[in-house]
């Protein structure tokens, strides 16, 4: 890998052509991740995998037709049009198999994906043997390649990806509605089937746009990995779309730069691995649901439980043996290093015991109260009951203590 080239690609100074490719890949990543979020919410992520593999026969047919009419078989716009046609056929085939037979959608996806791909391979081998076949380039649609991309192709991909982002923005409300609650959407007068179809068609169009850059085998990853990563950062669908689009753009941009700077690296796999690195970072570092945050939260909870139990033991005059409990108490300044409670510690212990006693009294006073569900051995009763209720509990406790 050449670091100079990588740096130049990342700072958009590797030439005008490379800069347009990088911007195009970023826009492509954003639109793929954006539509992928809606498809993910609808739990149909792998339908796009069938669609993307179904583009291969279309690419082959388009090449054959264009060459037969004496044109340049490698015109990207023509190949993309052919790809869109068979991808739509693949989508219809998945739909037809699940509706007309008792096979489930996963079987339909697997069958369409592999059969269309196989037919595409047959066409590619036919093209290889055609006398007019300067087939070089077609197999780059399998795993993607930005090396040697024409300027006009880069512009086409960039403009089409930008249009995809606009279409996503226009369709976002009905797609979110259907993603969360299809029956409510139907009751509210939306045509769920048509919205689903529009969503998958948009996914299809973005797949076709991305064929040249990421390749048909792996483009589905750009629609799945960023949204799943974005799921760690937020619980709100609108923010999830934006975060996914940002991650997708980053993956597209960095991935193309890395692949341009290393010899013999197809673009698609590099973009996918970049997206996966972003996924791992999200998994670790996301503020609420990341592994780091939830581990810290768990440790804090564990320490609170040990502190409370330790204080109760002190208040009852029992010795504390558990090392972790002692460490927690020591850290909070509740016991001295030799294990003897400090003044603050004794105060806190008395408070903890009083809190338990008050809960106990409340349990006897109002056995059916729903507020008892808030008792978890940690929550102070002052945060649940009003001052006069607590005063009443204390009066009863005093009576019990006073009674012989």
């Amino acid at each position: 890998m050449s670091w100079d080239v990588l740096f130049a690609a990342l700072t958009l100074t590797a030439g005008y052509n490379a800069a347009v490719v990088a911007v195009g890949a970023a826009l492509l990543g954003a639109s793929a991740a954006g539509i992928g979020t809606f498809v993910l919410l609808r739990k149909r992520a792998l339908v796009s995998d069938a669609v993307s593999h179904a583009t291969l026969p279309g690419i082959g047919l388009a090449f054959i037709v264009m060459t037969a009419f004496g044109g340049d078989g490698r015109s990207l716009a023509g190949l993309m049009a052919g790809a869109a046609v068979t991808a739509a056929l693949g989508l219809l085939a998945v739909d037809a198999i699940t509706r007309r037979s008792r096979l489930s959608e996963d079987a339909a996806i697997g069958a369409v994906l592999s059969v269309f791909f196989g037919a595409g391979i047959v066409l590619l081998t036919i093209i290889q043997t055609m006398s007019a076949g300067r087939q070089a380039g077609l197999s780059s649609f399998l795993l993607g390649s930005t090396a040697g991309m024409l300027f006009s192709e880069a512009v086409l991909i960039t403009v089409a990806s930008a249009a995809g982002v606009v279409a996503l923005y226009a369709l976002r409300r009905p797609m979110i509605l259907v993603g969360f609650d299809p029956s409510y959407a139907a009751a509210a007068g939306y045509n769920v089937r048509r919205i689903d179809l529009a969503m998958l068609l948009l996914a299809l169009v973005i797949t076709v746009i991305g064929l040249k850059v990421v390749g048909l085998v792996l483009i589905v990853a750009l629609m799945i990995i960023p949204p799943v990563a974005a799921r760690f950062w937020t619980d709100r669908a609108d923010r999830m779309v934006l975060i996914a689009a940002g991650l997708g753009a980053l993956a597209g941009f960095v991935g193309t730069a890395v692949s341009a700077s290393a010899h013999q690296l197809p673009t698609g796999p590099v973009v996918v691995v970049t997206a996966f690195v972003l996924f791992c970072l999200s998994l670790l570092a996301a503020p609420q649901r990341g592994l780091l945050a939830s581990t810290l939260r768990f440790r804090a909870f564990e320490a609170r439980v040990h502190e409370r139990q330790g204080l109760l033991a002190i208040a009852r005059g029992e010795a504390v043996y558990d090392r972790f409990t002692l460490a927690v108490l020591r850290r909070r300044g509740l016991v001295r290093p030799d294990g003897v409670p400090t003044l603050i510690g004794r105060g806190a212990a008395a408070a903890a015991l009083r809190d338990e006693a008050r809960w106990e009294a409340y349990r006897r006073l109002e056995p059916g109260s729903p507020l008892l569900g808030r008792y978890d051995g940690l929550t102070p009763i002052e945060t649940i009951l009003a001052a006069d209720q607590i005063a009443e509990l204390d009066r009863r406790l005093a009576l019990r203590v006073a009674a012989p």
Partner: protein
Amino acid sequence: MSAEFVQLSLVPLLVGILAAVTCAIPGNFLILRRQALLGDAISHVVLPGIVVAFLVTGQVTTWAMLIGATVAAVTAVLLIEAVRRLGRVDSGAAMGVVFTTMFAAGVIILEQSSARSVHLDVEHALYGNLESLVWLAADGLHAFADPAALADLPPALPRLLAVLAVVVAFHVIFWRALVVATFDEGFARMVGVPVRATSAALIVLVAVAAVAAFEAVGAIIVLAIFICPPAAARLMTDDLKRQVAWSVLFAMLASVIGFFLAAEGPAIFGSENAVSAAGMIATVSGLILGAAVLFGPRRQRAGTPSGV
């Protein structure tokens, strides 16, 4: 049977048939358990499994490939479960994260390492190379009795025979456990069938079948022979044993017709070059499935009114 046929066509034809049957049999249970896409994921991660096994052992031996692919498949299944739980997404999306990444990593390692120059290349990893399995030392059927010629036999053929034997033996021995665990997990637990072990064994078996068929048909087309024959068979009958028999028949039909179409079909159009046999086998298996969807006697769910 001419010497040329034995040299150039017999082994690819047999390998195609064996691969299709080996994959179609466990495919029946993938379909019934709605795990067809798990087959997709496993067939993709066979590539990184083989590549890493090559990097570790330095050679492409049968055992290294089998172990590498099995380890990769089990890793993938565990990772999918981890992503599904940690990310709180459906299993389809979790699969999409895991198998695409592992496949991408496999391609990158392959392109950057020396594995490419020895035996593997990316395009054949995607769609196989059935035609390369020629047996030049043979000059007729009697070569099967000639030790010198047998030594030159492409190793894919005996490997597939062995794997097919394992697959058949597994299904015969564990038939009852497989059936019960597939149709009614709760009942299976009640009568003491180890449900989790059965699922795990099926996954390993799918990985082994995928790696045995990998050389012939590659990572993606292998899915066609995992899914299409059993899916078509499912639309023919309600009896599981008959379904398996139909799937074997469809698998053999697809590979024989596909192979001859690929070899002889172009001649009809005046071209002497053959087209991809693996691709043609996938296409024919898809056509068989299409016919079953349209005309299969059991294509509808039980109780569906006619004309819907």
